[in-house]
């Protein structure tokens, strides 16, 4: 290989492929980097490059009680939805993972369908349904709606890790006299835990970030963070939003690196 001189063919192919992928990778990273840089501006606008540097907008964030209130709501709803998704999703994934029966296949596609259906249409449907049965919108309806759109992530990741589980381990455990509950607790659960964790992480992030379902299923008193940010952006371009985005980006990256260490997130989602 080393002796062969690179031909025009090799050069153009590699040039085009590497060129396109470098452009793509830069474009993937650039927006987050730009937001981080702009959030440290000393000015009042989102001018790039900033006229000077300061941390004033992060200090401003400290006093932005509306954003903090919305962030707290989003966090609480995401935590409940993730918990509910994990309990319901893992229980459902256990039988579906190894079953070839038609009913298991049908359940699997139903549980996955919120991933491709427009969430806004589901949000509207949920609002109509809750108003038809006379249940007023509240944090409860929010958690229910978010769970429907978040549970597919838990089901998919848990099924994937169950599929990699060697059944011989379960046979060994059983032949050594362990009960099914013990086998589940001591063998199955520790081995599929990374899958459950990464599914739960993605479920949490998508609930925290959800706008379409929240728009319809929240009550007037429950402000949600992404909706608050969206409405702020529609009105005026506020640098406080840049500081808040900076906090969210850094938090996401930190948790991502942690999850990569604990669960090998990148291998799981690929």
């Amino acid at each position, binding site marked *: 290989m080393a002796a062969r001189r690179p031909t025009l063919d090799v050069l153009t*192919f*590699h040039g085009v*492929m*590497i060129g396109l*992928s470098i452009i*793509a*990778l830069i*474009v*993937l*990273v*650039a*927006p*987050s980097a730009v*937001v981080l840089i*702009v959030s440290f501006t000393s000015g009042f*606008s*989102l001018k*790039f*490059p900033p006229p000077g540097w300061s941390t004033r907008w992060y200090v401003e964030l400290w006093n932005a009680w509306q954003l903090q209130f919305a962030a707290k709501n989003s966090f609480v709803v995401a935590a409940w939805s993730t918990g509910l998704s994990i309990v*319901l999703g893992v*229980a*459902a994934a*256990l*039988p579906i993972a190894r079953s070839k029966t038609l*009913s*298991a296949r049908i*359940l699997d596609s139903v*549980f996955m369908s*919120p991933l*491709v259906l*427009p969430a*806004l*249409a*589901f949000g509207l*449907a*949920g609002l*109509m*349904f809750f108003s038809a049965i006379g249940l007023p919108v509240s944090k409860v309806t929010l958690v229910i709606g978010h769970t429907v759109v978040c*549970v597919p992530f838990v089901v998919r990741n848990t099924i994937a890790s169950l599929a990699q589980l060697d059944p011989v381990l*379960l*046979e060994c*455990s059983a032949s050594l006299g362990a009960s099914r509950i013990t086998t589940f607790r001591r063998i199955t659960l520790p081995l599929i835990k990374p899958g459950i964790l990464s599914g739960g992480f*993605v479920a949490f992030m998508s609930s925290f970030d959800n*706008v379409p379902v929240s728009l*319809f299923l929240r009550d007037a008193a429950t402000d949600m963070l992404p909706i608050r*940010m*969206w409405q702020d*952006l*529609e009105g005026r*371009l506020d640098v406080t*939003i*840049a500081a808040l*985005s900076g906090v*969210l*980006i850094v938090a*996401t990256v930190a948790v*991502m690196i942690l999850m990569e260490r604990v669960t090998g*997130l*990148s291998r799981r*989602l690929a």
Partner: protein
Amino acid sequence: MAASGLRRSIDVSGYDLRLAMPLAGFFAAFFLAPLAVLVVLSFQTDTTGAHWGVTQYVQFLGDAFSLGVLASTLWLGVKVTAVCLVFGWPVAWLHARSGPTVKSLIMLIVLLPLLTSVVVRTFAWIVILGRQGIVNATLMSLGLVEAPLKLLYTDLGVVTALAQVQMPLMVLPLATALSRIDPNLVAASEVLGAGEWRTFAKVILPLSLPGIVAGSMLTYAASITAFITQSLIGGGQMLFMPMYLYQQASTLQNWPFAAAISIIFLIAVLAVVTVFNTLGRLSRGFAQG
């Protein structure tokens, strides 16, 4: 002994389907029932609910404005998917042939946008594409343009921002598909005298078809429903199906018409998903056969 061992192996690794019942019940009550209510409401002729009929559908399908919104939404999805494919395929290709460190670095770069808030990502594009944004600042300092270009609230802006936001959905299935290709096939093609471009066109690209189909489906479905990015980058002049639905439901309180829009949109998305699923089956058969 062998028979009892076999029986036990089925026994211990399988779980009763009844464990899926809580989630099935939850979905029946809070996913399928709401969708049923949506269908029923779409057949009301007015907001009072006194009469039933297909008025709402006739109104949508007979109205050039509504059909235009549907068409521009579906066309937007095609453009975004094409851009994601052209740039996403090389990323997956680079990922497949890199060492472990570069591999996980690429993967983290791809996953970062997927996990950051959509509002944050869209906000970033407002900063980049705005009148005082990076693109305009660079072009003006180089003297290429006199006045700032209008990039926000344009078709180009929406496609660029959406392509970045949805790119991970294209790259992830492609990376899986490319890593499954037997490297011997590529080597064989080269030994037989095919150059890189020919190997790409005749071997790698066809074998990556299952990934292309899966990635295109996810990207397409996500970009036509991506209502935050569409409304913030597109602005008021460009109307797509999700915002149209939201305006009718929320601002105008016209629930029956909003329900009909939702059903038409759902059917459009399902049709696209079905087409891609069929293509996916064909391409898997092709890639394995």
